[in-house]
């Protein structure tokens, strides 16, 4: 027999029980080191405080396209050498762009730490001279194929592209999606990208985190050696302020008829910025609502009323820090269920959240979040990305340790409060997908 509640494990007060040491170079580059000798590998992670929220009209997708260009060579690194050198060292590498920021990261066997730092410094300080029209043209095609593969050629693939402009007004930094528009990508000029690098890829606009088999003293010395000669930039222009978007005054709906296999509903709300006390409550709420077989959506819509397909119910917050972050709730209709019935069921479950959740639901959500947190920090790469995030967005990498205890401290009242305030029907975005061949169902009038 397994008893559930008599094996309560005391939560550690800190979700980051590893050492953290920080330094700031004279040029403003913040360096964060967390030593861990468990495996002979080291993760190098850089957050640049620039994302698609910085893009003006007509230049959507540029921050992400630029991220691709960072792999195409710099003054001392010939085209294609970056990938070859990291993989040839046994390392893994990648980069991602989102509305808030751009991150670059590699995990390498520890003896190649210096190589990774040299490569990162060369493209931070020496990209522009190596950037050619040919490279831009090639990577523009790659990105357009990425857009086709991930958004256009997949059923429901464009949902995120549609939700953002419905959630955020024109001019808001989150109004457009990071992948950008084909028209803007086609118009991208070389000079724009040269200027983009000069403007944002400065040491004082970045955080370098190194986690794993290396000492802080060694990393600080190497960081100074490779990055120390780079000049800071004094006047980095901020992104438009999106922290207080105009209040939502009416519910918004959009219906898409497309080549999709079943009706699907998305309900979306603006909530609170990632990092706020309220957003922690939203995270717990989303987990109670949509994560796992014990969640409300699963129990009520997939298992109970049998309106939704069990594999396709979800609720999650998108962890954005510079404006009220979205909460996205979604369900896909079971065979024979029409979109109206699915929406009614989904709305009922979401609207009931204002009445609160139970203590058991709260405990379940917290337990799942604890496992998710430890999974995130179980690799040196995951830990390095967390340290970069908290240093960039909250000014102190050690605040990474606060997230898990903050989730564990969320109360039933706080969950009720954010559900009541953030999920009001009059502020809801509803996006509906209908199959192209859908006929009016006979059972509904």
């Amino acid at each position: 027999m397994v008893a559930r509640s008599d094996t309560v494990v005391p939560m550690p007060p800190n979700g980051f029980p590893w050492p953290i040491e920080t330094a700031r170079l004279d040029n403003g580059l913040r360096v964060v080191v967390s030593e861990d000798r468990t495996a002979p590998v080291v993760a190098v992670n850089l957050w640049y405080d620039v994302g698609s929220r910085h893009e003006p009209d007509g230049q959507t997708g540029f921050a992400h396209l630029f991220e691709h260009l960072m792999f195409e060579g710099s003054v001392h690194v010939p085209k294609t050498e970056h990938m070859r050198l990291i993989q040839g060292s046994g390392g893994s590498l990648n980069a991602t762009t989102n509305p808030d920021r751009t991150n670059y990261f590699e995990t390498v066997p520890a003896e190649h730490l210096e190589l990774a730092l040299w490569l990162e410094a060369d493209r931070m300080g020496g990209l522009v001279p190596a950037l050619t029209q040919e490279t831009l043209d090639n990577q523009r095609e790659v990105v357009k194929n990425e857009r086709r593969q991930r958004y256009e050629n997949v059923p429901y693939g464009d949902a995120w592209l549609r939700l953002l402009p419905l959630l955020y007004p024109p001019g808001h930094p989150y109004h457009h999606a990071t992948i950008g528009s084909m028209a803007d990508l086609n118009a991208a000029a070389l000079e724009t990208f040269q200027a983009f690098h000069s403007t944002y890829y400065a040491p004082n606009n970045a955080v370098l985190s190194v986690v794993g088999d290396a000492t802080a003293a060694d990393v600080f010395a190497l960081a100074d050696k490779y990055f120390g000669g780079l000049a800071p930039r004094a006047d980095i222009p901020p992104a438009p302020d999106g922290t207080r978007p105009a209040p939502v005054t009416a519910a918004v709906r959009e219906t898409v008829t497309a080549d999709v296999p079943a009706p699907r509903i998305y309900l979306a709300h603006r909530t609170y910025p990632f990092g706020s006390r309220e957003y922690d409550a939203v995270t717990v709420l989303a987990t109670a609502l949509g994560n796992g077989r014990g969640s409300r959506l699963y129990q009520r819509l997939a298992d109970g009323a049998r309106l939704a397909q069990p594999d396709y119910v979800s609720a999650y917050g998108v962890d954005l820090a510079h404006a009220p972050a979205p909460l996205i709730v979604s369900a896909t209709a079971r065979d024979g269920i029409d979109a109206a019935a699915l929406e009614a069921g989904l709305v009922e479950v979401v609207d009931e959240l204002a009445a609160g959740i139970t203590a058991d639901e709260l405990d379940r959500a917290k337990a799942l979040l604890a496992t998710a947190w430890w999974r995130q920090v179980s690799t040196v790469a995951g830990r390095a990305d967390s340290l970069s995030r908290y240093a960039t967005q909250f000014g102190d990498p050690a605040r990474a340790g606060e997230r898990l205890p903050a989730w564990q401290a969320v109360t039933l009242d706080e969950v009720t409060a954010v559900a009541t305030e953030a999920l009001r029907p009059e502020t809801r975005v509803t996006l509906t997908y209908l199959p192209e061949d859908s006929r009016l169902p006979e059972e509904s009038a």
Partner: protein
Amino acid sequence: MTLISERPGPGAARPYRFPEVIRRDGIVAAHLPGQALAVAVLLLDAGAGREPDGREGVGAVVAKALEEGTAARDSAAYALALEGLGAELFTTVDWDSFRIGVQAPAERLPDAVALLAEAVRTPRLDPADVARVRDDEVTALRMDWAEPGPRADAALRADLFGADQRHGRPLHGDPESVAAVSVDDVVDFHRGWLGQPGTLLVAGDLDRVDIDALGAAVFAGTGAPVADAGGPLPVKTRSGRQIILVDRPGSVQSTLRLGHVAPHRSHPDYVPMALAATVLGGAFTSRLNHLIREVRGYTYGIRSEFGQSRRFGRFVVSSAVQTAVTAPALVDTVGEIARTQADGVTEEELAVARSWRAGQLSVELQTSGAIAGALATLVVHGLPDDYHATLRAALLAADVDTVSQAAADHLHAGALTLVVEGDAEKIHAELAAADLGPVLTTTFPPTS
């Protein structure tokens, strides 16, 4: 701007050590001091290869049905009990095995494993629930098959191995084969295959986990081990190339799956084959990605690999390219495969491939989940405890001649099946004119 121009060399290499493997009484475990999360996986010889004809996918239905309540509690109570520990069941069915596992904070692992055992050994399997799970699985597969990829892969698999063979049909079945699964099929599969003891894999901080207690929970009341499925199957390549065009009207990309049959996983050429496939298309810097993505800009990515199980294997190249460049992308891809087969690899390329594959062992094997996966490899393929250390040494020792010979022996550019899932109206003529092989147009699988 002051940058250091000289590229630094490596420091002193620090040896990677795979954790000590503990084997006793059906348990294979690894001690990972300090890891917050621990993993337990029950590995059963009940993979897709064990599924009866016409019922492909029954294993996945069984896996889902296990969570629909047990002898002790209903499905909602089961979900709350397990998720209240921060754990969820994860199940995978591959060709050789049926795996069901839990990951949880180490202190909670015993309770999670007790629940795992309860679901595997004493599921309720109420006929109404089983029928509903089956129907949901059919719907989920239809959703999956609406995306590009599954139909192309099914067409490739059928051509390589023959649709009359289990491994010539999709690993998780297709909407039709799962729709044919009856409640009795599910009950029979459970009775026939999930009562065996199996092997319990545990990875985590064993100072906080009593593995013998875990073993007692999962092995209580189990039956006899099952008979071995048999040895490797013969490798028969086709006599010439064949293009199979799977129509996907309106597609803005063509999904490519190119392949041929290959030896099984424990073939003695495993290491040089893996390195040859890495040089050709296994890494970002490999020949295919360099040409098709970085030079041509046809795709977001392309990769090649040998996919191998206990009894069979295949070589496969996967990509998605813009519709308008389908034919030139195929010509370039076949050209690189042929060049690698004929001319082998260079030392410069191989140096990257061998360091990458060897380094990846230490980079990837950090977490309890990854170590549990490595333990499963040892068990499924009957490998010794020092396998990962030996593999690393073998990768680093492979020379150009050995790897080039493996490319010559195990790549067959002239016997490829080239499956293209895309807009047939737009690309058929160009494919027919490309001189790559005859074109067969299909709506595979035949739509009902």
